[in-house]
């Protein structure tokens, strides 16, 4: 009973937020000086007559009052029509269907790398706090936090592509089922860049969670039973540290969707971040609006999933 209520409340909040996001995006795009027509037609727009421009505006619905445009757009989205790209004529839905899986694959890779690097580093750090080992691990973490993704990406690409003459990303993007090997190679460097950024906060969270849990009574009980150190580390300490670690991973996954914009651009990965960027550079209202909406939805879904994951990890949460 309590569970149902909480889930319903979370969903309600999420819906309100999503609507708010839609409004915000809509408003932002409309504030742009120079509207979609002139942007997409470029110089040609200057050669058209006022009447022709008006006709185009009417066709695209830009001459209607703002709130009507907004509701019009929302109802279209609800019925599955996410708009059409001016340039290519392709529906945004189709574009997204192609680009979203790419970003998801990248995000999963990056998260895997981030966790594989961050958690063990955090455990090493916590094993002997304030020692040289700890300081070393923390330094690596700090460096990871401070090197911007675009710099690391540019650096990596330069060194690997130019110096080592290895650039799988120069070839067209390969889908996993077309050419798995090439696909994985293409994903590798962007995933490393994003994973590196992810690893730092995960490492910090792991370290502080472990230190906190280690001082708790039940760890002393386990030691008092004669349990082996390995089992204590994993089954008692790490297991109980998972909640903050999972929380942090979820948050970082959200940031990753933002960082993906830059990384996808550097490595020419046709993901949803790149879709957003190109849409923005070309002032495509439909593309940008729908893309941002989808990204925000993704973000909310990640939060919900993290919430659900808690219930699996910590049985105390289940009882409400």
């Amino acid at each position, binding site marked *: 009973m309590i569970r149902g209520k909480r889930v319903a409340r979370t969903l309600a909040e999420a819906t309100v937020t999503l609507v708010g996001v839609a409004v915000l995006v809509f408003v932002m795009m409309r*504030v742009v000086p120079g509207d979609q027509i002139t942007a997409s037609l470029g110089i040609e727009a200057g050669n058209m007559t006022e009447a022709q421009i008006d006709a185009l505006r009417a066709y695209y619905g830009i001459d209607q009052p703002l709130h009507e445009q907004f509701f019009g757009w929302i109802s279209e989205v609800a019925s599955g029509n996410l708009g059409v790209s001016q340039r290519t004529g392709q529906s945004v839905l189709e574009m997204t269907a192609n680009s979203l899986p790419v970003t998801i694959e990248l995000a999963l890779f990056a998260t895997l790398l981030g966790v594989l690097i961050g958690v063990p580093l955090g455990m090493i750090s916590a094993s002997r706090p304030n020692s040289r080992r700890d300081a070393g691990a923390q330094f690596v973490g700090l460096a990871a936090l401070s090197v911007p993704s675009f710099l690391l990406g540019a*650096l990596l690409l330069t060194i690997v592509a130019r110096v080592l003459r290895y650039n799988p990303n120069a070839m067209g993007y390969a889908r996993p089922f077309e050419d798995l090997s090439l696909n994985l190679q293409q994903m590798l460097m962007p995933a490393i860049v994003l994973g590196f950024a992810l690893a730092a906060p995960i490492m910090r969270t792991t370290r502080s969670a472990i230190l906190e849990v280690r001082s708790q009574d039940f760890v002393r009980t386990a030691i008092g039973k004669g349990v082996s150190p390995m089992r204590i580390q994993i089954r008692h300490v790490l297991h109980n540290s998972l909640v903050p670690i999972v929380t942090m991973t979820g948050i970082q996954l959200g940031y990753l969707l933002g960082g993906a914009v830059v990384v996808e651009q550097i490595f020419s990965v046709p993901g949803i971040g790149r879709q957003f960027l190109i849409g923005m550079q070309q002032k495509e209202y439909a593309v940008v609006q729908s893309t941002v909406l989808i990204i925000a939805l993704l973000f909310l879904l990640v939060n919900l999933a993290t919430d659900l994951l808690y219930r699996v990890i910590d049985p105390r949460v289940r009882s409400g």
Partner: protein
Amino acid sequence: MSVNEVAWLEAEDTPPQRESTWRRLLASRSGQWGLILTGIVLGLALLSAIGATPYDPISQRPEDRLQGPSLAYLLGTDLFGRDVLSRSMAGVTSSLQVAVVAVFISAVLGTFFGVASGFYGNRVRGPLNALTNILFAFPPLLLALALASVATRNWFTVAVAIAIVYIPIFVRVTRAPVLSLRETDFIKAARVLGFSSNRILFRHVLPNILPIVIVQVTLSMSWAVLTAAALSYLGLGTPPPTPALGSMVFEAKNLAATAWWTMAAPGLVLIVFVVGLNLLGDGLRDALDPRNESNA
């Protein structure tokens, strides 16, 4: 309300000593390095701001292009013959300008809304929560990108875009302590005794959340610098010809294989700056931690 009661009440509420905080900061390793590194970078920015760079960052000298580091050009020159060192220094200044303004705006507005939300309760809190959630629903970089692209491009609009993205953090960070402060005995007593809300706010609440705000300001500075750099990398930051660290890295992308200094210099400056700010933030957080009070 006797003078004594007022004095007692105000004495009951003592925020951490500023003097010992400074000393603790100087004593910690992260505090020391944080101050040193940020100091160096700030020094460079200051020099550039007063025009004390070795060369003019903007003027081109095509005859000297793509020279490696030498005595004449300490960090080499770029594609247009511009001195990389001078450009890096100018880049720091422009980064700093954007970051300081952005963080100032978001700190002031965010703290204002956060304190209001914590102090005044439900009518304010509902819509504020909704707004904060909406802003939080975007990955920060994405939001900054979108905001930066909608207005005419100059450094101020970039700063405002970043500010808007980071307001929610300040709201969240200041709301919680205000909520718990509201329940403390001396605040309750103050209200019962008829202290005006303003007096309570300014003399009791604000000084107590000041340490938290300071730490968050330092952290937000480092994010702001990173975000501004990412924006300028994507071509959405401070417009040329003002040098910006991010766009310098972008320009260097195709050159770096042969002219490594074009990417190394802005990159290194950026890293040193951010590392310094992060260390400073950590050091401040430890120094201001009330748990350290007992050992002072």
